């Protein structure tokens, strides 16, 4: 055996898993297909910090490469005419640590991977895993694109959304189209001065913006975002693949045509355009472990669709998998029975509650709210409302869930009324 643990993919889930395994002295190999971690990755990118520093004190590092501290979220609700809007703002003062940070993945991922290397993990870059080695049903290593076979006690699949490792290992099949969303994202080069004005930062406040409704949502689901970096603006669109009737590029152009968005992007130039899938978890999470293997982060399907947010689940599932691998290797049982503690861990965490909540929201919407136009608005109202309260209360799991229950029972009629009257009066 070459290694105790092989981790495939140096994103947030993989780097955390590798670091924690190496911390306990396990011989750990981290494989990444990019020439550097993060160069093939894109996200919004906002990393919520709730409870993060408690469980990952080493992430609280002044060297963390961030592009803006973020203190709150502003939600714009745009009516189906594509222009009229109103906004809701989460109240959030300037606090330390900030509620979230915006980052560039090509800087943040290498920084996180360096923590794994500092702990003693070996990082091999420019290496794609194309297959797994199996003995009977048990996974006991990987095969790289050069055909090299590397063996290990445990393999951790941290290879993101299209996880080839999970498929090869038999944890899941190709996902169904209704289990995916797609994001397109531009990075607009701007100046700090313009951004500070466009995003109302006069009092030191920094808010990310989510834009709901409008004419850029193809079908019932989707939203756009504007996240301020120091000298650039991340402009993204998310929509479900199963709802997609038009090219996401075209939907994005409609968003860019909104008068207020135009003002915010005045003088800014697109310098990057990216496309990535996002999990929608509509049909629940896949199998996440089997003999010799665990899947973490996006590879396991852990994205909270309600908040469009997958980095927290990636970090914590990486941690749960590392703890499980450490115990399993110590006890000499890396079969499913030795690894199933991983399932118990994530099922008892906010991850399972988020997944259940996402599913509940989407089931409820699809079954209960038939009419497309209003359904669109309600979904976004719920998402925004939860995000708002989730943020200000600093919770991401139970708080959100109970708020959602409350919303459905008591607040929804009010929102509908608000929507109706605003729509009639014009905004």
């Amino acid at each position: 055996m070459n290694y105790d643990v092989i981790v495939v993919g140096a994103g947030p889930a993989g780097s955390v898993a590798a670091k924690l395994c190496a911390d306990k002295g396990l011989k750990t190999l981290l494989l990444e297909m990019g020439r550097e971690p993060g160069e093939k990755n894109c996200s919004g990118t906002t990393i919520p910090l709730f409870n993060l520093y408690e469980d990952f004190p080493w992430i609280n590092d002044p060297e963390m490469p961030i592009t803006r501290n973020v203190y709150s979220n502003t939600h714009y609700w745009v009516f189906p005419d594509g222009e009229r809007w109103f906004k809701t703002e989460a109240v959030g003062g300037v606090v330390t640590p900030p509620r979230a940070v915006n980052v560039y993945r090509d800087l943040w991922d290498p920084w996180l991977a360096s923590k794994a290397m500092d702990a003693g993990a070996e990082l091999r870059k420019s290496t794609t895993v194309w297959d797994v080695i199996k003995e009977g049903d048990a996974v006991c290593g990987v095969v790289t694109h050069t055909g090299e076979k590397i063996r290990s006690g445990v393999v951790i699949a941290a290879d993101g959304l299209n996880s080839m490792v999970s498929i090869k290992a038999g944890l899941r099949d190709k996902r169904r189209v209704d289990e995916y969303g797609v994001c397109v994202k531009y990075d607009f080069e701007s100046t700090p001065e313009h951004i500070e004005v466009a995003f109302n930062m006069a009092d030191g406040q920094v808010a990310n913006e989510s834009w709901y409704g409008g004419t850029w949502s193809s079908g019932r689901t989707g939203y756009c975002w504007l996240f301020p970096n120091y000298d650039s603006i991340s402009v993204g669109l998310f929509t479900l693949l199963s709802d997609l009737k038009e090219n996401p590029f075209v939907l994005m152009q409609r968003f860019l045509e909104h008068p207020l968005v135009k003002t915010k992007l005045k003088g800014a130039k697109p310098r990057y355009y990216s496309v990535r899938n996002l999990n929608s978890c509509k049909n629940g999470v896949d199998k996440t472990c089997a003999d010799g293997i665990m899947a973490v982060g996006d590879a396991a399907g852990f994205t909270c669709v309600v908040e469009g947010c997958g980095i927290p689940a990636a970090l914590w599932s990486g941690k749960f998998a590392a703890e499980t691998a450490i115990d399993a290797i110590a006890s000499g049982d890396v079969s499913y029975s030795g690894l199933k503690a991983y399932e118990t861990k994530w099922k008892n965490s906010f991850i399972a509650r988020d997944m259940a909540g996402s599913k509940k929201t989407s089931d409820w919407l699809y079954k209960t709210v038939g009419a497309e136009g209003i359904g669109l608005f309600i979904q976004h109202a719920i998402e925004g409302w939860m995000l708002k309260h989730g943020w200000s209360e600093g919770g991401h799991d139970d708080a959100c869930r109970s708020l959602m229950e409350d919303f459905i029972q008591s607040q929804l009629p009010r929102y509908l009324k608000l929507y109706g009257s605003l729509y009639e009066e014009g905004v």
Partner: protein
Amino acid sequence: MKITPAELREKVKGLYEVIPRETEVVKVLKEECNGCGKCADLCPVGVYEINEKKAEVVAIEFCQECGLCYHVCPVGAITFTYPEGGTGIVYKWA
């Protein structure tokens, strides 16, 4: 607004880098393809066109390896894989 794959490629050209790769990251299985055109309509970087009622990969050098086509194809006629290490789509956000 409708956009042809060729127009789309013009719009996104120069906004990302693809390091030349040997691996065919997406492929159309001609016998399986029913010519529905979803891949060509929805690919956000214009990799596909429909020729003689079959999907064709006409601009693989634009592919960002997102897997959208592979998932929206209703008859499973598109294969998807990541390329050999150190190649393919890269972003330099900073």
